[in-house]
């Protein structure tokens, strides 16, 4: 009896990950495993020029020599890199697509995810590039962006059509040998997004990419490269989901941002990869390298992330503050429930004079989850008058979870000013009781209190995504109290 009840409860809980469906679509895959032939296969499928293949092979040869990092506070069984597929694509993908040519089943998937690729989105002013497993299937609103001179396309297309830009900037922020996962990505990345905003242009709409892992046993390795030329502005949002599967799937993306003189890039992420079930089975391993280079003076890069998914999150969106007066920002909400493990934070590297950075991190732990903020603020010798403000707040729900804060601060310039504040709190019984007494149920009360806790970060998100993110915060914490 009890067993049936438990099973029913588990089933009901499973319902809460509403993106856990699988689309039945014919896939083409590379043979299982990873060797130089896999790299050649991927490059060949993309009709890449020789320089790109060489770049990938160079990365692969370095990767073979590298070791997986172990310094993060995350535990997982050894990943067998030979027991996975490195390329999976829906079968019918002609080279150049218009929306009409896209497999209707795929479009249906995106509708289920609530991102219609149709012209409706035009009204919302959002251009969407959707990456389904390994290929970019449709990019909307090309026309309007073309008029502004903005390039927004799959990176595979940019490698062919904008080779000069890609060659100049790819790997210039995250070098090929940066770290184990970034190097792996450099060898096998399958697709991703490329954005170039020309001088003085304010991108006329929010740009958005939607990533989805559909195929089983498949790693996803996207590569995103955004270049904001002098005096330009762009706001970019990525969202991620994956079906529910009992096995763990690897996701190792690389994102590179370059902001030239006076340019500003705002990069927002709502990450909701499948987190695994409440017993810790399945879920995405998310090992991501994101870095922005404020290469020009008076430039600005702002990262906002809402991390609610993945079994493991290993992610440190960073800013290299090279240009004089440049500004780096990091706003983060990381929620870990059940058996999720998150080790996330940022690096702010102050190289130029009068550079400023601001870090606001909100970590929420529930169930038996472990949530670590890991951050580095480094002020180099030439960074006179550098300023940093860091605020790390942790919220604990229940008695079996953990919150950890690991800030590193280095300063080699005596005029620098670095501030760090940290708090840890719990949702108090009296807060919960107060909400209940006013008629607000337990789960809604937790969502309300946590959203209040995260407010400073949620405010940074573009309006329509802020509403989604607020709901997501509630959903991720269902079942965390009581």
């Amino acid at each position, binding site marked *: 009896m009890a067993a049936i009840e438990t099973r029913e409860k588990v089933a009901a809980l499973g319902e809460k990950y509403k993106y856990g469906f699988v689309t039945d679509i014919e896939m083409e895959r590379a043979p299982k495993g990873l060797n130089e032939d896999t790299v050649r296969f991927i490059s060949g499928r993309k009709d890449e020029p020789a320089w790109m293949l060489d770049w990938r092979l160079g990365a692969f040869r370095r990767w073979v020599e590298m070791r997986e990092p172990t310094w993060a506070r995350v535990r997982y069984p050894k990943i067998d890199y030979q027991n996975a597929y490195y390329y999976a694509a829906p079968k019918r993908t002609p080279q150049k697509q218009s929306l009409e040519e896209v497999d209707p089943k795929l479009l249906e998937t995106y509708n289920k995810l609530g991102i219609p690729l149709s012209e409706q989105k035009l009204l919302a002013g959002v251009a969407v590039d959707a990456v389904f497993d390994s290929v970019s299937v449709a990019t909307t609103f090309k026309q309007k962006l073309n008029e502004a001179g903005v390039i927004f396309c799959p990176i595979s297309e940019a490698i062919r059509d904008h080779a000069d830009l890609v060659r100049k900037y790819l790997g210039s922020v995250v070098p090929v040998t940066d770290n184990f996962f970034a190097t792996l990505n450099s060898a096998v990345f399958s697709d991703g997004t490329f954005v170039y905003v020309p001088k003085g242009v304010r991108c006329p709409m929010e740009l958005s990419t939607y990533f989805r892992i559909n195929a089983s046993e498949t790693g996803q390795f996207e590569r995103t490269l955004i270049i904001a030329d002098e005096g330009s502005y762009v706001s970019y949002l990525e969202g991620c989901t994956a079906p529910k599967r009992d096995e763990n799937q690897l996701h190792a993306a690389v994102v590179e941002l370059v902001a030239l003189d006076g340019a500003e890039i705002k990069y927002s992420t709502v990450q909701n990869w499948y987190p695994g079930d409440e017993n810790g089975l399945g879920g995405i391993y998310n090992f991501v390298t994101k870095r922005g280079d404020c290469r020009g003076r008076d430039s600005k890069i702002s990262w906002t992330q809402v991390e609610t998914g993945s079994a493991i999150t290993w992610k440190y969106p960073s800013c290299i503050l090279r240009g004089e007066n440049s500004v780096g920002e990091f706003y983060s909400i990381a929620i870990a429930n059940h058996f999720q493990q998150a080790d996330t934070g940022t690096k702010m590297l102050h190289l130029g004079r009068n550079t400023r950075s601001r870090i606001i991190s909100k970590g929420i732990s529930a169930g038996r989850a472990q949530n670590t903020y890991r951050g580095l603020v480094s002020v180099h010798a030439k960074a006179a008058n550098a300023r940093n403000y860091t605020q790390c707040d942790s919220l604990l729900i229940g008695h079996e979870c953990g919150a950890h804060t690991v800030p590193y601060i280095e300063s080699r310039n005596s005029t620098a000013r670095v501030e760090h504040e940290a708090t840890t709190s719990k949702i108090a019984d009296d807060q919960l009781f107060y909400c209940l007494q*006013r008629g607000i149920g337990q789960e809604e009360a937790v969502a309300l209190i946590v959203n209040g806790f995260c407010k400073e970060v949620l405010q940074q998100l573009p309006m329509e995504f802020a509403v989604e993110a607020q709901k997501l915060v509630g959903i991720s914490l269902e079942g965390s109290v009581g």
Partner: protein
Amino acid sequence: MLEIKDLHVAVSGKEILKGLTLSIGSGEAHAIMGPNGSGKSTLSYVLAGRAGYEITSGSIRYRGEDLTALAPEERAAKGIFLAMQYPVEIPGVTTLTFLKTALNAQRRARGESELDAVSVLKLVRAKAAELKVPEDMLRRALNVGFSGGEKKRLEILQMALFEPKLAILDETDSGLDIDALKLVAEGVNALRTPDRAMLVITHYQRLLNYIVPDKVHVLSRGRIVKEGGKELALELEARGYEEIVKDAA
């Protein structure tokens, strides 16, 4: 409206209420007075359904229903409101957002349609004006940085907004100056209709000058030891709890 019979309540294994019996009819206002530690706040928490307050024996019936079977939020939706002695702070959640969330949660539970932001704002503004709650308080985080008086006024504002059937006021007068006290009392009196009941828990007689009770109960060591009309409050004020409790014993 409310029928409490021989109620025994324990907190962390220690018995606090030891056979409390109390009955409140529709349209009535009752006062509970008693010294510190007599079980006044425990009674209010038990009625609201707070976790950790264990009913070891006895019964509570509310409008013909077994109250103890209901979750705290269900009790709220069915019209039980507790104005708290120490209203809690919720950082980052504006007062208005909180009121809208609570109001709509109650309406949903009763099968009524939810109100949109504009309607809620109108409603709240009207009540706020009556209670002289300044507009900026609605935009600040709930109770964060509020003075004692502001917190209590906000409790009464919520009471006016939710229009409960049974309102329990736990030491609502503590921390209020005389003007605020009058304002709060007016708010309470405005809700005194034949289909509602009030349970006013207080230390001092002062509040009862403004909210005149139909009945006064003296609580001591977890039991009602004396009952009377509104004049009992005056007697308590004059003679002190100790003497009255001794008389009763």
